[in-house]
């Protein structure tokens, strides 16, 4: 009853052992906290053994973080980077999914465009970024476009696999019952592609934010990448780490509060382990 998570079972158990259940739910979170604390201790000890401006202890990084946050700089640059990540992510996922599904369902087009895909997959991110800035100027659109172009081939490859795995029986059912194009996409196509979309998203977000930093470093005057470049010029490692860790923390929160709940919702129909 408890494992299956049925409404009745859970509420009854909760009433019986409220404290026990609370600890059980907190245990994984506690483990993560302890683990991170351990990392900080190791870091602190190492910084104590080799004291250097190039390797500040965690407390220094924390103080810089608080200072930058108080001045409002941290929030502004984090927001700029986050919006670029979001924009590039949306562009890359939409364009990559459309191309991937088309290639996966049209064999001729696939064999024609496959060499292009291989070319783009192997194009270094830096080359795309530099060319985008040269061709389209140091603009926001060029920056986001360059990041998206770097990610699109990966999305295409994953979504193409998804489209190849589409079950023709569902398409036939949709044909016989004359489902409209919107219903087909929403109820037949997208749920089948969802696991592939989730996989592309997961690997995508991590890749995109790393490339966004490079784009900001090369041609933007805001964002975490720009700040890191700034502090690199004055060798302020504490500030560099402060910005990096702050952004990693935000990405972690997005994963926990947005991606995972969404994924649980999308896969609610799968048979739960009884």
């Amino acid at each position: 009853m408890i494992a299956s998570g049925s409404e009745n079972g859970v509420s009854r158990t909760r009433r019986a052992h409220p404290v026990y259940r609370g600890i059980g739910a907190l245990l994984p979170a506690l483990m993560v906290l302890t683990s991170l604390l351990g990392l900080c201790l190791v870091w602190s000890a190492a910084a104590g053994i080799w004291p250097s401006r190039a390797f500040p202890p965690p407390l220094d990084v924390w103080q810089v973080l608080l200072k930058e946050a108080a001045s409002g700089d941290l929030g502004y640059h984090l927001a700029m980077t986050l919006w670029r990540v979001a924009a590039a992510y949306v562009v890359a996922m939409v364009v990559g999914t459309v191309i991937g599904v088309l290639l996966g369902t049209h064999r001729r087009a696939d064999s024609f465009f496959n060499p292009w895909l291989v070319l783009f997959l192997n194009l270094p991110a830096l080359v795309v970024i530099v060319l985008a800035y040269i061709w389209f100027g140091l603009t926001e659109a060029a920056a986001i476009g360059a990041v998206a172009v770097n990610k699109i081939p990966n999305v295409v490859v994953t979504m193409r696999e998804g489209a190849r795995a589409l079950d023709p029986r569902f398409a036939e059912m949709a044909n016989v019952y004359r489902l409209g194009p919107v219903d087909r996409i929403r109820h037949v196509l997208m749920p089948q592609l969802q696991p592939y979309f989730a996989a592309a998203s997961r690997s995508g977000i991590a890749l995109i934010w790393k490339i966004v930093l490079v784009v900001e470093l090369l041609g933007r005057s805001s964002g975490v990448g720009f700040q890191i470049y700034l502090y690199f010029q004055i060798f302020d490692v504490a500030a560099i780490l402060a910005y990096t860790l702050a952004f990693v923390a935000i990405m972690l929160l997005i994963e926990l509060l947005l991606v995972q709940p969404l994924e649980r919702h999308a896969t609610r129909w799968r048979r739960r382990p009884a």
Partner: protein
Amino acid sequence: MQLAGAAAPLKVDITEKTFRSATGVTIVALRGLSFEVRRGEFACLLGPSGCGKTTTLRILMGLDRQFLGSYQLPEGGSNRVAAVFQEPVLLPWRTVEQNVRLALPRNLRDKDLNSLFGILGLSAMRSLYPSELSLGLARRAALARAFATEPAVLFLDEPFASLDERTADRLRRLLMTVWAARPTTALMVTHNLREALLLADRIILLSPRPAQVLGIFDVPLERRLRDAPALDNLVSAFHKRFPDAV
């Protein structure tokens, strides 16, 4: 869907249907197959495995357009075609009720389905996902989807395959109950003679590949009188007329 006149029967006239195998050999699946199903009639296509029954159904459902010949679908009801496939083919990510409603045209999505779910014994399962259903229940949901659309013609492709005999029998009777509540021109494919004799008004007997019509057997008995001994008599009557078949 050529030339559909009012009150027209289901007319099938397939000159030839060929398949090309992976090795490039051409296989003739159907040749000179023609028959009619009268309006409101329940007909069975009966023939040995692999004779082209499912191929015929796929052509009529519009899923296979690579053939020579023509067919005409009856009009009436929603003017739609409904199908019950060999497997239930329910969308696993939608509940039973959502699966049924999705098959309806948009303006009828909110239609009252209580009586249909009631007849099929699905009232308590409306909000379950297909993975939570047994195969028998999933097939009932597929039947509900087909009848909900009030089709002009209903195609059934061995809808009781891979069920144990008791479940299959219960489902056959359920099928007859829903069908009697809203008589629809129906064409069912089967290789099970007793099943055909239990359900059909007429049986269209097909030859081995390439499929042709060997003969028509009109079941002379009212449906409610077809109990086990009556079916035995029908089977022997059928065998007397078609000594070489099945």
